[in-house]
């Protein structure tokens, strides 16, 4: 079943940046502000952004984040649920990941589960339940194009790359919506760049760290060597930024210019990409 974007019906009357004003960054924590379990969890993760966002959630009151923020965070939560379960199952699958590569996927697995935990805590009772996934991309049939995803390592790595590159573009597409809510924006950005780290590692791993195109850490034009993933890379050949045709202001070739900028996807575009994976 397709997941529809959550359209905010009632915009909160709360001052958008109230959290940032109430919570004076690290000072609130070090000054002995009453820190909840969620805040402390954020700190244990080594994450000031997560702790700050947790504080900001509390400043709004549990479950009282503005609707537009809830919509974005629930959208992110669907993607993080998808990724977390994907890696949980992949790491648990017998004879899938070679011993030498396990640390890579265990690292990503732990991060995606931490992202799920953060988003669920931030959303409180507004958090979506986890959907049922079909990682074959068969909409529940189990016989989609990636049917051997947990028995064929090449397929598993390819789907991982598609998820990570999609995740980067998905968070990026929501940054401007979160812009007034600075603490939450920073938490989202700190997950966004981690997804980009994952993408880089998985892309390079797929080329056995030869760093030959298209298995480099970055996206060149709309190039993909994974069948069925054209939508994941659509728009990545853009060379115009802030209205400037970048090819006219640098001697570097257009191909590398496209690598130097990652492009966003809208919520609808992302949901269309992940729809086959959701039952």
């Amino acid at each position, binding site marked *: 079943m397709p997941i529809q974007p959550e359209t905010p019906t009632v915009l909160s009357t709360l001052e958008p940046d109230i959290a940032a004003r109430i919570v004076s960054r690290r000072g609130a924590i070090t000054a002995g502000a009453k820190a909840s379990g969620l805040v402390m969890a954020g700190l244990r993760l080594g994450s000031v*952004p997560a702790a700050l966002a947790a504080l900001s959630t509390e400043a709004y009151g549990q479950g009282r984040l503005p609707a537009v923020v809830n919509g974005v965070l629930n959208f992110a939560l669907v993607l993080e649920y998808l990724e977390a379960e994907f890696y949980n199952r992949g790491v648990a699958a017998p004879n899938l990941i070679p011993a030498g590569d396990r640390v890579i996927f265990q690292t990503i697995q732990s991060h995606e589960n931490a992202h799920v935990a953060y988003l669920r805590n931030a959303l409180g009772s507004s958090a979506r339940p986890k959907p049922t996934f079909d990682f074959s991309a068969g909409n529940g049939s189990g016989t989609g194009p990636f049917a051997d995803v947990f028995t064929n390592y090449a397929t598993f790595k390819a789907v991982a790359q598609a998820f990570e590159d999609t995740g980067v573009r998905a968070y990026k597409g929501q940054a401007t919506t979160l812009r007034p809510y600075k603490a939450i924006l920073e938490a989202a950005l700190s997950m966004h760049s981690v997804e980009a780290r994952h993408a880089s590692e998985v892309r*390079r791993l797929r080329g056995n760290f030869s760093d030959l195109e298209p298995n480099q850490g970055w996206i060149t034009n709309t190039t993909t060597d994974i069948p069925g993933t054209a939508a994941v890379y659509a728009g990545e050949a853009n060379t115009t930024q802030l209205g400037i045709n970048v090819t006219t202001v640098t001697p570097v*070739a257009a191909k590398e210019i496209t690598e*130097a900028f990652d492009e966003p996807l809208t919520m609808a575009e992302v949901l269309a990409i992940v729809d086959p994976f959701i039952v």
Partner: protein
Amino acid sequence: MIREPQVDQVSLSEGVTPDEKNSRRAFFRAAGLTGAALALAGCSTEGASLLAPAELRTAVIGITGSVTLDFSMEIDVLNYAYALEQLEAAFYIGVVTNAAFASIFAANEQRVLRDLRDHEVVHRDFFAAALGSARIPNLTPDFSTIDFANRASVLQTARTFEDLGVSAYNGAARYLVRADYLAVAGKIVSVEARHAAAIRDLLNNRSADFAPNAFDQVNTPQTVLMAADPFIVESISAINT
């Protein structure tokens, strides 16, 4: 005093792809006539500024060797990014033009470092064009602590710069009001994160090091500028953060 870049006294044209070296722009760069120099000489600069006249920076720059970035002005947030991209571009140009480059790095490592040089030059030139006459002058790198002929020295410095860049963009977002500025910062930060992961993997292949935390750091301008300070001759300070 605005000084010429001193990346091993390498002209910036050496940072460009070979087929572009004969372009007029590359010629100007090779001659040391970078955008700011052209601007100072009263020549037109490449790329139209996006900024309305009222937004043009009035900050005092240049002659005292210090730069003050006013974070209450969005253009100076872009100048902050421009400063960091200048630093990264100069660093990777120094890396790939060093005589030892081909002997100390494996073929795949050379590919990665050349790509990073290209990407950072793109970022630098893009910000220069976007800022137009509102940009800060060319900064003078100080890479005296880096041994460009030593693989570990280069990669460890690269790791520092890339992680710092990620944390800087993540921390600068709160100062951006215009949606298109925030969007373009988002387009760049994830590329810096891709770089950071690749460099970290070159230092420790197939390990957990490519992404040390589930949440990347979000650093204040002061923290970032303090970390960058040893590598830049000019003193850069941030106000109204």
